[in-house]
């Protein structure tokens, strides 16, 4: 059967995409951000997911104000990058997994989550920037990706609780799929940021760290956050962190936090990133070990010697 082995969250700041596309990743400002994902790339190269489910939001690219689906699952065979006003990002076309996507659709709709299904959809930086952060800039993305677009543009987005429960339904769907597939689920967006109005520029690192802590240990607490509190504390656009709870709902109650990274700012946003692994039943080791957990090891060839347990504790927090 298919199973979800891990969850990844990451901000999806458009300027990160622009830095990649314009070859500016070596500038000190951007280095600080990209270095934080070096170990994540090593991790996912080892984890080798067969499929990624990418939870993200569209930013007035595929959906305008004409149609506003709360949850839109991509069931197409492929999803071209959208023209966001400067021409499409020069990234590979996202290949879908129509069979698993349709299976998920059928399962979660019967579980009372009324999804919108998209057999034609373009995807914007919300999905492709996290793919870059995790996979770099390959000619083709290394595995199929099933996009799940969540409305966080027009208030109200779905509640955190609803998102968490959808994650659980997605997990159930994946686990009832007969083919042996390793699935990693991405929750993207966040962390604290506000890009509109006189309060633009808001960052709340304390809140972000608490959110990350609870994401690992006590996600149910996060499902109780009201939109009002999220917007007040993490910014009007920071409300998109509800999407992380879909990822979290799809994982075990108890998970191993194998990596964390946080930095301020990327453009107008606090960047938060976390990798959570499901504990494998029967104490069996997962294949998804981090290559290295040395916080100092920035090089690509870092020594793969630290144990997973140590990795859990070795939480890197980068503050600037």
């Amino acid at each position, binding site marked *: 059967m298919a199973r979800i082995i891990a969850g990844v969250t990451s901000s999806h700041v*458009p*300027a990160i995409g622009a830095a990649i596309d314009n070859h500016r990743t070596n500038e000190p400002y951007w280095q600080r951000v990209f270095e934080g994902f070096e170990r994540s790339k090593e991790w996912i190269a080892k984890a080798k997911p067969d499929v990624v489910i990418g939870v993200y939001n569209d*930013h*007035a*690219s595929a959906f*305008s*104000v*004409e149609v*506003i689906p709360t949850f839109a699952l991509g069931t197409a065979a492929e999803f071209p990058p959208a*023209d*966001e*006003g*400067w021409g499409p990002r020069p990234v590979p076309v996202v290949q879908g997994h129509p069979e698993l996507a349709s299976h998920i659709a059928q399962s979660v709709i019967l579980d009372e989550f009324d999804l919108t299904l998209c057999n034609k959809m373009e995807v914007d930086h919300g999905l492709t920037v996290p793919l870059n952060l995790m996979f770099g800039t390959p000619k083709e993305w290394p595995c199929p990706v099933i996009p799940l677009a969540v409305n966080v*543009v*027009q*208030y*109200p987005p779905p509640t955190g609780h609803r998102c968490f429960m959808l994650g659980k339904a997605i997990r159930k769907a994946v686990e009832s799929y007969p083919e042996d597939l390793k699935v990693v689920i991405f929750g993207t967006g966040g962390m*604290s*940021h*506000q*890009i*509109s*109005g*006189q*309060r*633009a*520029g*808001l*960052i*709340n*690192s*304390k*809140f972000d760290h*608490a*959110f990350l802590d*609870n994401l690992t240990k006590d996600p149910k*607490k*996060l499902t*109780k*956050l009201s*939109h*009002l*509190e999220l*917007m*007040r*504390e993490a910014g*009007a*656009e920071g409300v998109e962190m509800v999407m992380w709870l879909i990822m979290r709902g799809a994982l075990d109650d108890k998970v191993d936090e194998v990596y964390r990274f946080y930095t*301020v*700012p990327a*453009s*107008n946003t*606090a960047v938060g990133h976390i990798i959570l692994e499901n504990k494998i039943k029967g104490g069996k080791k997962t294949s998804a070990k981090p290559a290295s957990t040395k916080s100092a090891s920035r090089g690509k060839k870092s020594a793969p010697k630290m144990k997973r347990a140590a990795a859990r504790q070795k939480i890197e927090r980068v503050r*600037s």
Partner: protein
Amino acid sequence: MATAKTRVEKDYDDIPGTYVFDADRSRRGYHLNMFCMSLMKAENRKAFKADEAKYLDERFPLLTREQREAILKRQYNRMLELGGNIYFTAKLGATDGHPFQHLAAVMTGSTQQDYADLMLRGGRPVDGNRSRSGKYARAASSIVKDSKPKQKASKGKKRRG
């Protein structure tokens, strides 16, 4: 927040400097946002730049007078107030060739350099920016508990900020 005539007061109106893009604003701002959406196409950007007023009048006749004026004058907060959404209005900024931080500077009444510096210093602090009414001036968040006084600042316990 200068709400429009028919808008019902919402709990999030208490957040200062913030125009939550809800269904009311979306309805009122429909044509404004659809105008912004039209700028996703290169030929439309060209036509708009060639004669902005003509473009608006011919293609988006249902824009209100206020919305039309806010667009032409690049009043970004006013656009939000009149139902624009930032992800849409950002397309107008991009059409003008501005990086996003230019728009942020305009909206916050700052210069682009000062705004960029603010971000590099860690952004705008939340303390003092939670509430217009002062209701949340002390209480922080239900999940932030490591700061000195007990969260749930029950009886007006002192919190920094």
